[in-house]
């Protein structure tokens, strides 16, 4: 009971610091801004796709072709994938542009807003944001040398357990609040799209199937926690903010995917199962490994990271100078 109380006190102290230092607010603003950029891009995409459709329609009509017949005719696509490049050949450009405009106009509708926000943030921005958050959670007490005070309030394992739970809480809070805010922004943008594009003409098109929303949310939250844990471990190993941040950014943004067991490849394997990438972001095609192997390995890595963090902490000196 005393142990639980000590962990809870450490947890509360962590949250207080994050609130006072405005870290949560800053990350929330960054996440919302990134989500808003994507949603605004979806508005442009919908408008652009509609313009292209109208232009294509008029061009074919001016050429004396029966465009209404074309619109009713089926569309055949010949897709060729070369590495990450995808070439799509179509036999019915009017119908193709009609469908493209119809899909683009649906991206800001209801739950599709959430899916598109997740597709946009999950694979570049959330990994960076939450890794940096994890590094920050561990490193700020090294920076201010306040571990020396904190390890007198609670034993190191309880102190870091409190930190870890606070990190999970903040990750969850930022994740949920970003999605709620982006949903509200998306609804506003959708109202703008409705004003500019006569959406009723696309009502004959099938609606985007969004029955994987729950699994998308769970997987996205896992990604956030996974990278927060990576940051947590890096913060413990390097005891500073700058160096692990640079190392992670080089790994995530500059180094190519190092093989099928690279975590980015394993994440991509799962992502292609649950996301369709119809919005502005298209994830690279991963090297094949079975889905269950990706899931098992990622969960195992997350558990190993927690174990490694506490093992390393148990071996290092406690006088955090």
């Amino acid at each position, binding site marked *: 009971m005393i142990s639980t109380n*000590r962990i809870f*006190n450490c947890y509360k*102290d962590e949250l*207080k*610091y994050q609130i*006072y*230092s405005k870290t949560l607010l800053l990350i929330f603003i960054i996440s919302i801004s990134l989500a808003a950029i994507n949603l605004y891009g979806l508005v442009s995409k919908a408008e652009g796709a509609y313009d292209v459709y109208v232009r294509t329609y008029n061009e074919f009509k001016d050429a004396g072709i029966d465009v209404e017949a074309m619109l009713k005719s089926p569309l055949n696509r010949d897709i060729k994938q070369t590495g990450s490049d995808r070439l799509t050949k179509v036999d019915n450009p009017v119908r193709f542009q009609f469908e493209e405009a119809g899909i683009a106009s649906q991206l800001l509708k209801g739950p599709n807003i959430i899916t598109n926000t997740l597709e946009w943030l999950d694979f570049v921005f959330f990994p960076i944001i939450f890794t940096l958050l994890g590094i920050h959670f561990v490193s*700020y007490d090294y920076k*201010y*040398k*306040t571990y*020396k*005070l*904190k*390890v*007198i*309030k*609670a*034993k190191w394992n309880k102190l870091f357990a409190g930190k870890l739970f606070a990190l999970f809480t903040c990750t969850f809070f930022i994740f949920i609040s970003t999605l709620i805010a982006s949903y509200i922004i998306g609804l506003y943008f959708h109202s703008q799209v409705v004003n500019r594009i006569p959406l009723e003409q696309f009502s004959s098109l099938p609606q985007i199937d969004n029955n994987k929303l729950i699994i998308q949310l769970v997987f996205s939250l896992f990604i956030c926690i996974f990278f927060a844990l990576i940051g947590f471990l890096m913060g413990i190993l390097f005891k500073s903010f700058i160096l692990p941040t640079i190392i992670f950014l080089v790994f995530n943004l500059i180094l190519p995917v190092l093989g099928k067991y690279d975590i980015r490849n394993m994440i991509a394997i799962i992502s292609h199962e649950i996301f369709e990438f119809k919005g502005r972001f298209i994830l690279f095609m991963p090297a094949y490994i079975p889905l269950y192997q990706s899931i098992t390995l990622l969960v195992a890595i997350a558990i190993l990271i927690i174990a490694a963090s506490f093992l390393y902490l148990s071996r290092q*000196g*406690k*006088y955090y100078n």
Partner: protein
Amino acid sequence: MIEITNLTKRYGKYIVFKDLNISFPTNKFTLITGPNGSGKTTLLKCLLGLEKYTGIIKFSNKSIYDILDEVQVVYDNCPLYANLSGYQNINSLGNNLLNQVEELLPKIHIDKKMLDNKVKNMSFGQRKKLGFILALAQKPKYLLLDEMTNGIDYESLLQISDILKNSDQLMTIIAIGHSLEFYSPLVDHLVIIKNNTVVSQEEIKCSGGGLVDLYKQNI
């Protein structure tokens, strides 16, 4: 009573202490002094459980980890969150003891308004005083002071001295330092460390230059 029995501390092959035995009397003021590099700070780290060692350290027959709530320490460099205000530091490091801290502020010449400032804008002495009252406000049974007098002006030293004088009946205070003139009116028990061992451990209640004489005799 804090009892250290057969304390041995080594860094690799270098032995800092070997079979050290010290007793710190309850509700008394103990000063640990000695030349630079004699191992005073290492002893403090061992007392706080921040270093691995062999031997036994007991606080009233309990391990430090069983009485963490009863221990407070003021470090020489006085770690605080420089990016937060004084009040925010009190809230996040001081277990919600704002009222107790505010009661102590006038005794140590700290204006409440100063606590609105970020710690990075405070002088070293102001930070140290804030760290001191933060520790004191928690009414610990054991108060450890590492080089408490460094960076503090004369008037504040007198105020701190008064506070400590009134507190040493309520808590066991262990101070590490060299300012013998400052500690002279406070000390009940003196421990002198030299060459990584205790060369003198005496029950005293001296005034004036008594401590200086004792120090000269042993060093």
